[in-house]
């Protein structure tokens, strides 16, 4: 008993010491890692901006992608219960990162310690600023859920819409619209267009009456709305002329408009900012953890995050990356104006209220789904 404890303690010490040595010597690192992301254009931007450069610097290392970010929370929980976590680094939206952290499935980290400082020496935690919404979360990009419309399908003589409330204005802008099949964002927009002041929206939404008010407002367009569950649907619906306007992620709109030459126009008004970033699963073995820490330090430095913006129109999460954002890698257009964070796009914005939705999500979702089903 005593012997085994001694042995364990010695091993622990050795491993800890090994961990410290590695920081300089890069010893004891696994040679493969499994990265989890969303697939599609977003994963491609990660591959180009930092995975390929990292693999070039470390020819022995191999990286495997798992396109499971959609159900990352459930899968990670199942893996954790089975005691066999095969993922090394997981790309999730901020609300999922908060839940993984709450569940103890993600590792809590010290941002200043494991992430590179900005080139001017600013600490990582200051460089990311408020975007570090959880102790487990390493932000990468800011994206937004925002609206777009088909100018050619607007009625003759109608002005181009300039406000999100066009979504609720069936008289001026008849035709179908498409919204996400969940309460988040839609409830806020409904209240905003029902005359609630922007800074009171969450106070109102916290009450039964406020929730009913939002649903009543959504009720006015319920018959004319196609509800989407995959973000690829709205561009397709708009392209086919099934709907005249709709909400989706700004990157999806960008790729439809610029890469596929669709005649859509963006309606940046009341766009909702959300974050996407990495989490490291809890309790990784030492060698895999070392490899991941090494990779993450590289992949989230100022230059790498700016590079990513050359492949997709999502804003880098570091303040210091913004000035380095250049042109699209293939189209050669300046990416700055297409970022949700560009000044002319972000005159009126929401920021996803993580705290509020963590509490109210189950309750409001039940009401929303029940309302949809009736």
């Amino acid at each position, binding site marked *: 008993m005593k012997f085994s404890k001694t042995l364990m303690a010695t091993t622990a010490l050795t491993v800890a010491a090994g961990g410290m040595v590695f920081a300089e010597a890069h010893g004891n690192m696994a040679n493969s890692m499994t990265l989890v992301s969303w697939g599609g254009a977003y994963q491609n931007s990660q591959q180009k901006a930092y995975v390929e450069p990292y693999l070039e610097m470390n020819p022995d290392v191999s990286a495997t992608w798992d396109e499971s970010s959609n159900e990352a929370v459930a899968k990670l929980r199942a893996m954790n219960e089975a005691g066999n976590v095969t993922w090394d680094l997981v790309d999730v939206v901020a609300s999922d990162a908060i*839940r993984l952290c709450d569940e103890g499935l993600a590792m809590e980290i010290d941002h200043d310690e494991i992430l590179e400082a900005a080139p001017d020496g600013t600490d990582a935690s200051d460089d990311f600023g408020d975007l570090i919404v959880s102790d487990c979360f390493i932000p990468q990009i800011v994206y937004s859920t925002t609206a777009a419309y088909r100018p050619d399908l607007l009625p003759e003589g109608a002005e181009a819409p300039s406000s999100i409330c066009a979504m609720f204005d069936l008289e001026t802008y008849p035709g179908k619209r498409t919204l996400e099949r969940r309460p988040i964002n839609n409830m806020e927009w409904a209240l905003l267009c029902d005359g609630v002041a922007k800074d009171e929206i969450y106070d109102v939404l916290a009450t039964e009456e406020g929730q009913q008010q939002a649903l009543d407002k959504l009720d006015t367009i319920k018959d004319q709305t196609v509800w989407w569950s995959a973000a690829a649907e709205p561009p397709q619906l708009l392209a086919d002329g099934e709907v005249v306007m709709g909400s989706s992620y700004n990157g999806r709109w960008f790729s439809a408009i610029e890469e596929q030459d669709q005649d859509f126009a963006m309606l940046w008004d009341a766009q909702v900012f959300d974050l996407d970033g990495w989490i490291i699963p809890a309790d990784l073995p030492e060698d895999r953890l070392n490899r991941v820490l090494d990779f993450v330090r590289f992949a989230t430095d100022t230059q790498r995050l700016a590079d990513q913006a050359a492949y997709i129109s999502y804003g880098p999460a570091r303040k210091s990356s913004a000035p380095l954002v250049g042109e699209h890698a293939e189209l050669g257009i300046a990416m700055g104006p297409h970022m949700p964070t560009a000044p002319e796009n972000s005159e009126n914005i929401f920021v996803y209220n993580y705290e509020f939705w963590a*509490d109210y999500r189950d309750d409001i979702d039940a009401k929303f789904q029940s309302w949809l089903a009736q």
Partner: protein
Amino acid sequence: MTDATAGAGPNPQDAAAKAAEKPGPMLAADGTPLKKSLSRALRRQKLRALMLIAPLLIFVLVTFVAPIADMLFRSVENQIVSDTLPRTTAALDDWNADSGELPGEAVYEGLYYDMVIAEERKLHTRLGSRLNYEQTGLSSLFRQTGRGVDDIGEVYFDQFDDLNPAWDEAVTWAELMGEPNWVAEAKARAGNDESIPGFEMKDGIEDLLPRTAEMYGIFAEFTETEDEDSPIEEEPWEMVHVALYQDLVSQDVSGYDGAQADLLNEAKAAVGDFETIGFKDGFLEIEDDWGNHDIWATIKTYSPNYTNGYFLAAVDMEKTPDGPALRDENERIYGILFQRTMFMSLMITFSCILLGYPVAWLLANLPSRSANLLLILVLLPFWTSLLVRTSAWKVMLQQQGVINDVLVWLGLVADDARLVMINNQFGTIVAMTHILLPFMILPLYSVMQTIPPSYLRAAKSLGATNWTAFWRVYFPQSVPGIGAGSILVFILAIGYYITPEIVGGTTGTFISNRIAYHISSSLNWGLAAALGTILLAVVMALYWCYDKIVGIDNVKLG
């Protein structure tokens, strides 16, 4: 008795003679009753058969039955509350939620210790998300409380520290609480940077300082297992100071003469003048919601290890202090979804029979060359991705889609009144009928192949019309195929998920879409398990009815 023990083995001749003497049980050649001997032989055979299938049986049990049972078990499991808040839930037993009053100081005291320990183990937020399914706001309440709970301990920690800085040192505590031999060895080893043996509690300290001993023990265990450190080098959490304060106020420590006795007596003399903070006041200061009666009622309602709460939620009910009650009208959803799932699955099954029967008949009656070609056409969709087939229906059925375009071009439908055929029940039924059709055609085809064509000819030669010959002779023989196909299609349809998700819109989604949401999005696995259990029970009940009405022996796959 004596015969059995004396005789080395039964004599067959004796046995035969005995059997002839009086009519008794028939005996086998070795003298045992035939019945027994037969059943032994059969048992051996059965055992051998069982051993042969054992690998498969074990495989099925381990990889199929056990995981499903484990998942379904989550629908009643609720240990997380009493595991995370053991002291609180024990203290809550004495509290009557109907009284309308907040629980007493003892409950808040339990909550303090539970929260500090849960916060160190990072379990409090998990409990918060669990309870948030039952009451909105508990998720952030537990998260905020976890951040603020140290405030209570600091009050006492600072006063002990002011009294004597020795209270701020790990060694003081280790000497007070630890077995002297352990302390000596731990100190020596710590000085040499060697590994330190596991903590051993001093004899008798539990009687002298019961709370402190309990809390220090928890701290010591956590420090050794989680932090891989030793209590000799780590100063204890503030909660141990709180426990010591409580012990000193209530216990007599004058008889103690072990290590740090002076320090302890000095503290004993001083605690009377300590500034105190009630646990209840402390929690109210961290979060007002701890003064909310409903929150305590929720915690009490969900403190047992097993709960029917998930099942109640799955049938649109909730637990209230007055027993289960229906939810508000605007929160009911599962009843609608179960009905809709049943209705649409039946519709899909009937559509499959209607469409599949003629095709299967054609397949069975064509010359084999053309039949094979046709069979390939039936199977072709099987080889195409499910998502492609479903998306193809979107292109066909949407308002700007192929069918609407044709109808408008033919002038049957006005351009501004195009038909809505997708994102509703109709779209789901069409798409799923198409996808599940092969499961109907194949069993029908294989049953129809076994019906000799001469029966129909015989019926006709005896004067039956085409219809009578079909209805009275052919159809009854094909019923087993319909039964098999219907069961296959219905059971597949009732659990279908991806097609309704894509083409179902709001009125065409199934209960399985909600189960998927609770598994992967809301993480409410208990509710998902309850919904899944109900779905399983419904399918089994239907299967039973089917067996009673049609008879499962009449089902043939070929």
